């Protein structure tokens, strides 16, 4: 993996905005970029941003070769059914939680109902961080 470095090549303060010009390089390729700010920043703002960009460029170098040129096999366009099923099931149970919430609000159910307790436990036991987009 190539190592990227950064250097500040120029800075201009004009019209109430500071522009910092940077140059990134892996020894062969040079990329010019700039950062702009309308207010004071933390002391290490430029250094931190430049370091982060270097890390992004390095990860890009690692990732780029893994992208294959050519037709994408049909089977890779969709996730296998067995991978989708748990998430769909979780979404369905989450919908039930919202329905319980409405039932409580209307006063037609009480929160200590056994089914509701079972549902809450199921949602906790089967939670996966990747399901957060369902919430």
């Amino acid at each position: 993996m190539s190592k990227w470095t950064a250097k500040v090549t120029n800075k201009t303060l004009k019209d109430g905005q500071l522009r910092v010009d940077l140059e990134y390089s892996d020894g062969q390729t040079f990329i010019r970029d700039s950062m702009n700010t309308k207010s004071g920043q933390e002391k290490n703002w430029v250094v931190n941003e430049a370091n982060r960009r270097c890390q992004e460029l390095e990860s890009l170098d690692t990732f780029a070769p893994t992208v294959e040129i050519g037709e994408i096999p049909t089977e890779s366009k969709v996730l296998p059914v067995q991978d989708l099923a748990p998430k769909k099931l979780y979404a369905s149970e989450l919908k039930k939680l919202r329905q319980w919430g409405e039932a409580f609000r209307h006063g037609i159910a009480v929160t200590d109902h056994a089914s509701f307790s079972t549902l809450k436990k199921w949602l906790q036991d089967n939670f996966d961080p990747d399901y957060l987009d369902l919430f």
Partner: protein
Amino acid sequence: MIYLVSGFDRSGTSMMMRCLITGGLVGVHDHFQDMSNMIPDDPNYHPNPNGFYGLRITEFNRPDFVEEYNGKLIKCPWRNLRKLPRHDYNIVFMLRDPYEIRTSMNKFIPTGWKSDRAYTYIYDWLVPAILEKLRSRGDMMIQTILYADVVSSPQKEFDKLQLPINSSKAAFMVQPELYRFRVGYD
């Protein structure tokens, strides 16, 4: 660095925004939400008498979001946190007793917040899960703070926060009388 205040609605996020701005952070917000700061059935009840300190949701989708808000303080709905572009974020995440959140939601908009009201029933494990997922990004420092603690000991709580603020000024803005739905009191 972008400073954010987040949490479930009705958790004291607007109060925190007001305090941190007074404490010295440069806050950005608009007033689009403020027109809803009254409920027809009870003209004497103002959900957020000092304003909501929110931003239009479209602001979070700006291609220049990082450039526009770098160095600033904004209030971010919890769902939007995980969608933010990579950057450095310092987040104050407000926590509140879920029963109190629900009660406040019911008073403000009884027919609203269908999802979040339901999620208050699983708040105790859902919020830690949300925070763990966010922390795993590696670019978010998250400081949690209990609404009740801010109200009862504002100076102590603001002293604890790792933020470039004057904690005494921030603490001065806490209005305990606006903490209206407390466990055991409503």
